[in-house]
């Protein structure tokens, strides 16, 4: 079985746990449970009949040859049950293990919700464990560093304001070589659309900004990007359980849109950010729905194509498959819209089985890839089923409108030597759309 033979060192977990005392653990746990453990926690834990039917949902479980310690309920058993049963009297070692399980063995992909007869949201329970571990200061180092970046800079990648603006201008310059009239409108009050992206785009995937600018420009969208904070819609704090910071991030993002008086926010091709803005962060702030309408790039592209704002010039000359990002399929049901766009631009699609809202997670989401290199092999071993799924399609190109999926699937492709590569919807559209003003 796939239990790693060597213990994985992670300063965030090891040093965090070393500072704990049983008294502190008990106090913090009971504080969190008293303040935040509501009816859902109680009902979920009380009505789980321990049937194990959720197991087949989980890629970790399936990839580890049905090792029950990786089943969704198995992870709850190893984390939350003892915490509740012992009323918080657990050891620092236990907290370290619980943090590892909740942070690196669950992607919060919510596939198990489709499998649980009782409708238990196990992702919610895992987040509760992460929340407790966060409050105890036992969170994997890399993702904690990202959360620190959020706190210090309001973006995920320690990008400073001048660097942000400079990156946009750089991409604008590049794009003007292709479309001389193109602008990336900064801080344009009253635009229709605020386009927000995640920190890694200006940091090391700047060509995505270029492509988005070309699509926006050619589609004739009245758009803008904020010049100061609020441009980054990503949110690792949601995944570490640092909800207070998550709230600050989401408020900053919404307020940027409100400051710019836009009609809606269009988010780049990122799954977790969409979950954070549309589903989680707004609730923390007390908004039933986002105060400014929010749509994901996949939906935006679908609408542009449907309304004839962008047109297909040529078909992408390869058969492709689609990696459905959990956070926009189980999080928003965008799977058919993604296919609408892909089928318009590509020769043919070979589906993975299962697909759409029953897809398997990429194993990178839920902050797991953000736990960094120490935990990479967990993702590789934990998603053999995805490698098998990908190999079975026999295609060379995977399209996925999600940064996490890209990171996760790329690693899987390399590890299992699948010889495939990934594309965003934006990549395909940029390549294959009509470009009237281009030189």
């Amino acid at each position, binding site marked *: 079985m796939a239990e790693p033979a060597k213990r994985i060192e992670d300063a965030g977990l090891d040093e965090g746990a070393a500072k704990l005392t049983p008294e502190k653990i008990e106090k913090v746990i009971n504080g969190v449970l008293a303040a*935040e*453990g*509501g*009816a*859902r926690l*109680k*009902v*979920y834990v*009380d*009505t*789980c*009949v*321990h*049937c*194990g*039917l959720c*197991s*087949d*949902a989980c890629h970790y*479980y399936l990839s580890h040859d*049905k*090792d*029950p*310690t990786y*089943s969704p*309920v*198995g992870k709850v*058993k190893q984390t939350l049950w003892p915490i509740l049963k012992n009323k918080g009297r657990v050891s620092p070692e236990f907290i370290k293990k619980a943090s590892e399980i909740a942070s690196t063995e669950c992607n919060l992909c919510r596939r198990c*919700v*489709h*499998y649980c*007869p*009782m*409708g*238990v*949201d196990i992702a919610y329970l895992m987040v509760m464990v992460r929340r407790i571990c966060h409050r105890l200061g036992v969170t994997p180092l890399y993702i904690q560093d990202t959360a620190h970046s959020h706190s210090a800079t309001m973006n995920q990648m320690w990008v400073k304001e001048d660097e942000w603006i400079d990156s946009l201008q750089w991409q604008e310059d590049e794009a003007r070589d292709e479309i001389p009239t193109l602008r990336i409108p900064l801080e344009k009050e009253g635009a229709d659309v605020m386009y927000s992206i995640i920190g890694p785009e200006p940091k090391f995937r700047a060509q995505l900004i270029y492509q988005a600018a070309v699509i926006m420009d050619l589609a004739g969208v009245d758009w803008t990007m904020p010049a100061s904070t609020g441009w980054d819609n990503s949110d690792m704090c949601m995944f570490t359980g640092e909800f207070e910071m998550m709230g600050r991030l989401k408020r900053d993002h919404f307020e940027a849109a409100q400051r710019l008086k836009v009609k809606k926010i269009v988010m780049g091709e990122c799954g977790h950010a969409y979950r954070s803005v549309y*589903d989680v962060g707004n*609730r923390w702030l007390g908004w*039933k729905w986002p105060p400014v309408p929010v749509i994901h790039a996949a939906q935006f592209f679908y609408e542009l194509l449907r309304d004839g704002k962008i047109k297909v010039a040529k078909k992408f000359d390869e058969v492709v498959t689609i990696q459905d990002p959990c956070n926009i*399929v*189980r*999080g*928003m*049901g965008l799977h058919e819209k993604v296919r609408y766009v892909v089928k318009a631009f590509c020769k043919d699609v070979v589906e993975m089985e299962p697909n759409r*809202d*029953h897809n398997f997670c990429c194993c990178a989401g839920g902050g797991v890839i953000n736990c960094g290199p120490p935990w990479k092999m967990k993702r590789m071993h934990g998603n053999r089923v995805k490698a098998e799924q990908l190999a079975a399609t026999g295609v060379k190109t995977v399209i996925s409108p999600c940064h996490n999926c890209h990171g996760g699937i790329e690693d899987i492709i390399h590890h299992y030597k699948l010889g495939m590569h990934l594309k965003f919807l934006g990549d395909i559209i940029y390549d294959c759309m009509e470009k009237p003003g281009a030189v």
Partner: protein
Amino acid sequence: MHGLYNFVRGPLAWVAFILFIGGSLYRLISMYKLARKKDVFVFEYTTLYFALRSILHWIIPFGNINSRNRPIFTIVTFAFHICLLAVPIFLLAHIILWDESFNINWWSLPDGVADIMALIVVAGCGYFLWRRLTQPEAKFVTSAGDYVILAIVAAPFITGFLAYHQWLGYKFWLILHILSGEIWLAAIPFTRLSHMLFFPLNRAYIGSEFGAVRHVRDY
């Protein structure tokens, strides 16, 4: 013998029903209050349409992906739960007791059918026991309490079956039957058997989260 029978048939039955109904109300009301206080959006997002969509997909056999993937389990669990609910409610002997005590009666199952259904419940318990003992995904999360609950559920049906057939020690089995039935009823609100109360509510909520908020299936 009148004394013991009258005791389990009379005062103890009242205790069981009060614990069952009162306990259920207590659990539901206290959970409602807690949700109002701490999980307000449960009420905000829950809609009738998606609540029903979810519940229906999970109470109709093969209505969801997991039940299609596990046909044997699905058949067993549906047969088990249908019989589990129908036999106590529609058993002629039970209805006669209702009629004697409260002057109310309703349609009853033929005794022969009810007999087979009771066996199905016991067989279902046997299947679940087998799963807990042998299937790693169930075994790993099984604790002593799960066996106790299986026993609590199986006992009224085993004893009822034995009492009905009167092979040996009729009155002994009858009294044990009543007693175990009362334990079962009283246990519902306070054990995992409370999934009977919370299943529809849980589904209504999660079905609405998936349907109304996330525009996707939960089945």
